[in-house]
């Protein structure tokens, strides 16, 4: 029910806000000459239902949405669902890789920083994490492309695959998975080599964030009685850290990872642009600049869904980590 209400709210906001912009989507999409041709403009409006009053457009859209029809994109002239089906997996592949990288490294370094509190390691990690959070992602993207592609020649250039490499048969839309599923190891290798750099660039800022959050959370539980008890019982330090400290420190870290995942899934337009990564960020940017209403609403629904799911997963993980949450 909450999902339905949220969808209605999102679609309504998108409809109203888009129509507040003093521009006609027909003119934005038809170009300078045809946009001044009344017949061409009228045909465009009829095709996309823009000739109807806004409330009617909204009702028609919602009615179609209930049947799984998200309308036709004005920029690609094919179903929005088909567009999203291609753009979302590209971003998902990048986002999941970067979040896994940043979570593993960030949490690990955060624990290390807390355990070495105020020592040289902690100071170095503070500088590293702050640097990661402070660097603009587009700048880091360009510099890393220059260094690792142009200067060191260690990784391939932009894009999801080399231009001459065929795309794997689409199952998930994620090239690495699809190449794996189809057994095309050369394509998998190529896709992975293209994925490394943009994923690392995206991971940099989140890694810094996770390091800071983990350090702070671990410090809060480090001096608790049960940690001292665990150590007094003679438990190995590794077991103390993983079973007692990290588990207790996890909830805030998981929350921030969940939010970061939502951000990465929906807000990577600059990195996608530099690396020619055809993801949802680029799609949403173009939808906005061309006032492509069906695509804008489709993207907004996707964004809402991502955050709902991210929060849901976080809640489930809370319950798994801390049984008291389940009881309440």
């Amino acid at each position, binding site marked *: 029910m909450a999902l339905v209400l949220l969808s209605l709210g999102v679609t309504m906001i998108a409809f109203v806000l888009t129509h507040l*912009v*003093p*521009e006609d989507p027909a*003119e*934005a999409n*038809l*170009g*300078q*000459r*045809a*946009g*001044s*041709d009344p017949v*061409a403009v009228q*045909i*465009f409006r009829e*095709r996309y239902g823009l000739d109807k009053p806004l409330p009617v457009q909204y009702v028609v859209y919602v009615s179609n949405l209930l049947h799984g029809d998200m309308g036709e994109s004005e*920029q*690609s*002239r*094919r179903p929005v669902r088909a567009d999203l089906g*291609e753009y979302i997996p590209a971003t998902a592949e990048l986002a999941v890789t970067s979040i896994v990288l940043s979570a593993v490294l960030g949490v690990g370094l955060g624990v290390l920083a807390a355990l070495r509190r105020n020592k040289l390691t902690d100071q170095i990690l503070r500088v590293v994490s702050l640097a990661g959070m402070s660097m603009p992602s587009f700048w880091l993207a*360009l510099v890393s*492309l*220059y260094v690792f*592609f*142009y200067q*060191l*020649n*260690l*990784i*391939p*250039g*932009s*894009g999801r695959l*080399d*231009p*001459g490499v*065929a*795309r794997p*048969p689409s199952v998930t839309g994620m090239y690495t998975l699809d190449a*794996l*599923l*189809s*057994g*095309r*190891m*050369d394509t*998998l*290798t*190529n896709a*992975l*080599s293209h994925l490394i750099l943009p994923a690392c660039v995206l991971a940099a800022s989140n890694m810094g964030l996770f390091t800071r959050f983990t350090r702070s959370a671990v410090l809060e539980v480090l001096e608790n009685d049960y940690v001292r008890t665990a150590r007094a019982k003679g438990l190995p330090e590794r077991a103390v850290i993983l079973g007692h400290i990290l588990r207790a420190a996890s909830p805030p870290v998981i929350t921030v990872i969940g939010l970061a995942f939502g951000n990465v899934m929906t807000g990577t337009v600059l990195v996608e642009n*530099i*690396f*020619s990564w*055809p993801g949802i960020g*680029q799609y949403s940017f*173009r939808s906005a*600049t061309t006032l492509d209403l069906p695509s804008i609403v489709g993207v907004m629904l996707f964004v809402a869904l991502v955050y709902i799911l991210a929060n849901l997963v976080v809640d489930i993980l809370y319950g798994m980590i801390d049984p008291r949450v389940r009881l309440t």
Partner: protein
Amino acid sequence: MHRPQRKLHIQALLGAAALAASTACAPAAPPASAPTSAPTTSAASTTAPAAAAKPTTAAPAAAAPATAAPAAAAPSTAGRTLVVANSYTFTTKDTDPARGGVDFQADPFFHAVYDTLLTFGVGDNSAPKPLVAESYTSSPDARTFTFKLRKDVKFSDGTPLKAGDVAFSYNRLLNLHDTPIYLLEGVTGVSAPDDYTFVIETKDPNPAIPFIVTNPALGVTNSTVLKAHGGSDQPGAEKTDTAESYLQTASAGSGPYVMSGISTSQVEMKANPNYWGPNKPTFQNVVLRDVAAATQLIEVQRSTDEVVLSLSGDQAQSLKGNDKLNVNAFTSPNLTFLYVNVNPEVLPFGANAHFQQAVRYGIDYDALVKVAGAGAAQAPGVVPPQFLGALPLTSAVKRDLAKAKSELSASGLGSPAIQLDYQTTSTGQTEALAAKIQANLAEVGINVTLNGQPSAIATPNYRGGKLQMGLFGWAPDYPDPNNYLAFMPGQLVGKRAGWLVEAAPTLVELGNKAGATADNDTRAKMYRDIQTQLNQDSPIFPLINPGGAVVTTKNLTNVAYSPVWYIDFAAIGTN
């Protein structure tokens, strides 16, 4: 694209890891039918039927596509892919010439896949040359154009291209009434009296028709294929035609390439195995990719077989010393112009001739050229220097500050205030030009307020004639001065400046005559006269022709910029 050795090491490591990871979950071996390399591989191994390669009738020398590079001179490019990077996302909208053919960015694709009746030679846009049509005639009144088609032209599926296909393509564009409809403005009918004769009739004399038919949006589509997939050229096609979705997955033209794939970031082409022309394209595969300009700047320096199209003149200049690249920086035929609105409801003093002169002579054109960067040049008139009827640079308006101040004084306006609107850009170049204009006119005594807006806001106000003063651009639709009649009173741009027919009837009459005159020498003189008058007394001020650049890796040859289709993939060879 060349794969450097060190990169292969990384890929080998990744490959080993991937192989290990895949043993548990992947099929034991790829299916025999699964492609293991680029889709271009199959194209590379396909040879064109000999019959299709040889014209069945002797064509005049000029009829051969003038853009094709001699295949014999090029080393083997089998399996190699020509990569063309452009900062434009090629979408499925851009695959149907009758619908998406307004985007200059999509035109290289259309040009490669769909032949047009006439074409231009590499670097020569002075006169159309035969392509699908081996000759054409114009009636004395320039209202009827008869094209005689070659008899050896075949579509990519091997079927012959006939006049009925041309008529279908033109009628479909007319009846879809979509983006490129303006190209056939004034066309009252097209017909195919026999299999190899095609006729265009226009309401008014239009000697530019031979230039217009070179536009890639007027590429000829295979009517049989399109009809089989729901294509229609009948009235009401805007609602009944369903061939668009087919053309999003396959092409149906007779050009040197066919579309072999499209994704969200690139469109792929492979050589047309049934290409009818005497010269086959050198590269078997072409990929047109969406790449940001900043990334293009880095990547082209590490590649082979690559062309980049989106570098600014300054960025291109920065590569001049790189001995691995060919840098072709040029003055583009695009026009950046300024106008003041003469509609008294928008700007009460816009029609004041002295005020217009104050603006005209107050602008520092040389400074604007410097701001615009490498390759830019002052626009001597609205018609770009590359086209028929252009004014020589010596006729361009020069800044005369004293005269500008004197004119402002004569206007009786004191220190007028005016708002300058323009479209903001990612490069900031328009903003810099606007700021320079503001500073120039401040010296004269005109207070300009800058109002940069995103395209979605600025464009409708510009089109609606609501702006007091505007700074905008114009890209040619076809390389003929008739395209610039839009700047005349009562025409497209003129109306946006509130400049109506009644304001300058003599000029309008001269424009109508120029637009209807067939003799090139006569019309060239007329257009020069028109522009001279525009430069003396009009609310429109041509400023600059911005710079452009095409940068290629050193091994590529015959890469020439075209104002109609940008570059011709099929013409590109290797050394």
